[in-house]
């Protein structure tokens, strides 16, 4: 098996500042998406991952060249973190041909195969068996690559989750299953959708190695992901990576969240925001942060301009790409 250099175990302070900048870019991008959706400019169903940026950035930073991901309906962060340009992502949300799925996918079907993004999936758990399959292909070909699935806690109750993890462990394929445990399946709290309190226990049923990490601490996510990837890549089998994270906004843009305690949500925003946490840890001054903010805001504004000036597909383009 060819050797692949694992990413290093920890990040330097300047690298962590870049991580902070990337998380802030995703945050500002999604806030802009919320704003443009409310302004009536964006069609479709949109789900933001505000509060969960550390998981996307921490995991994707740890990936090696050639590693692939499958994402969920809450995919903007994963997509940006895996390397898609904000212009191409925003253009997709506007339904333009310059978009990363050329206008055929939308927010819930973001693809960027060139960057190893095999697609966001609008069926909860839908991508998991295919990640097992991609990892199987890597194993059969002796390629030192890892396939990574993102999914939420709601997905741990669907059949594809159980079947895919069972098969992956049985065949010891190089896969990492990243559970973004934000404690909500749409509007249903974990206490109403899972009979067990610690979803890491799910992995035990398959005899799968399991690691748990605070998903609001991006440095910890990176380190844990790196270890999980190393384990999978070395042929020891898949890893269940349980990321304990926080969804600060609703299930979809416009969700009034009648099911959620407002005080609790406010407290989470004040105490568990991964961007604030990293900013404090790195002792980033107000001035430096504002500079960083201005820089990413400009990128986001430019992406909106790019998208608005993009090309509308011809209606009859709908007939293309049905078959290879």
């Amino acid at each position, binding site marked *: 098996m060819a050797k692949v250099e694992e990413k290093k175990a920890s990040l330097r302070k300047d690298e962590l500042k870049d991580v902070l900048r990337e998380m802030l870019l995703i945050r500002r991008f999604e806030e802009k998406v919320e704003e443009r959706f409310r302004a009536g400019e964006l069609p479709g169903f949109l789900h933001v991952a505000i509060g969960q940026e550390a998981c996307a950035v921490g995991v994707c930073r740890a990936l090696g060249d050639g590693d692939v991901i499958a994402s969920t309906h809450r995919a903007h962060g994963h997509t940006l973190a895996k390397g898609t340009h904000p212009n191409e992502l925003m253009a997709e949300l506007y339904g333009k041909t310059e978009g990363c799925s050329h206008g055929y996918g939308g927010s819930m079907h973001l*693809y960027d195969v*060139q960057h190893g993004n*095999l697609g966001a999936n609008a069926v909860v758990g839908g991508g998991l*068996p*295919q990640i*097992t399959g991609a990892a199987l292909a890597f194993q059969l070909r002796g390629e030192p690559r890892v396939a990574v699935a993102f999914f939420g806690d709601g997905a741990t109750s669907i059949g594809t989750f159980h079947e895919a993890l069972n098969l992956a462990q049985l065949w010891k394929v190089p896969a990492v299953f990243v559970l973004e445990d934000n404690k909500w399946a749409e509007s249903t709290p974990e206490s109403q959708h899972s009979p067990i309190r610690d979803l890491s226990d799910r992995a035990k049923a398959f005899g799968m190695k399991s690691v748990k990490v605070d998903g609001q601490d991006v440095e910890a996510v990176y380190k844990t992901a790196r270890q999980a990837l190393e384990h999978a890549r070395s042929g020891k089998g898949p890893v269940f990576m349980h990321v304990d994270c926080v969804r600060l906004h609703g299930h979809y843009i416009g969700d009034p969240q009648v099911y959620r305690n407002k005080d609790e949500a406010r407290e989470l925003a004040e105490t568990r925001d991964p961007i604030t946490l990293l900013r404090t840890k790195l002792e980033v001054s107000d001035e430096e942060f504002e500079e960083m903010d201005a820089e990413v805001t400009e990128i986001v504004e430019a992406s909106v301009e790019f998208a608005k000036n993009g090309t509308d597909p011809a209606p009859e383009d709908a007939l293309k790409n049905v*078959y*290879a």
Partner: protein
Amino acid sequence: MPELSYREAVRDALSQAMRQDEDVFIMGEDIAEMGGSMGVTHGMLEEFGPERVRNTPISEMALAGAAIGAAVQGMRPVAEIMYEDFMTLAAEQIVNQAAKHRYMSGGQVSVPVVFRTQGGAGWSPGAQHAQQLEAWFVHVPGLKVVFASTPEDVRGLLWSSIYDDNPVVFFEHRTLYGIKGNVPEEIEPIPLGKARVHREGEDVTVIATGRLVHESLKAAEEAEKEGISVEVVDPRTLQPLDEEALVASVKKTNRAVVAHEAVTRMGFGAEVASVLQYQAFDWLDAPIERVGAKFTPLPFAPAMEQFVIPHVDDVLQAIYRTVNRKN
């Protein structure tokens, strides 16, 4: 020309593809030591080993999905879904994932995967082991659908399906595994979307699939004794459909019967009838007749099962109805 059974013809296509191409592998429930529930993959484990002849758990969603995932990475997996009825379990991955990846990605992805499955009544398996569900899958854009009825066709079509860059649902009929037929020495790929005229005739065209191709050929022989000349055409690929060949035949004979084992109502034959009436309306001398199963789940008791599914006589009666109609 060697003679192969339909079962051996499937195995031969799989084996030859695997011999020449490392990217082809098979996976499914009980396909290794046991050789599959119908013995199709018997002996393949010994030749190709457990890496490429992969027994899976009873996990239709995972095995279908894993095949899709490997296909997106450029492999050419053939997943066996043990019984056609269990395609309903794999349907999420086939319908929502395999069929749509290329489209949703705007053309970035190809999914060269084959889902082989088998079904069919006649052995009294009851309601959950013998359904014919091709109509479910021909309705999904992005899938190709094949239903072969002879050893030669099943071999040539499976070969083409393996090397097609789209997901293909490949139906086999259980009662045909034992039938024998001559096949070319070397595999001759049969292009998807090409119908086969099994028998030429002048008075009526019978368009049939699967087991009903054979029932229709017998019906044609019976009809001939009455002086009725019957053409029997097997579309072989249901999606894409060789409309041109079917319409050409009906324009020649002016009468059509569409026959399949699946339930008649809302069946694949309804679409064929629609194509024919629209494209050959002025040529038709009689309403298009449809032959299929009655609108019930498949019963267990043999007498009931035989009553529900169509046979030679059902095709023959349909032929008579078309020719006896006054112009």
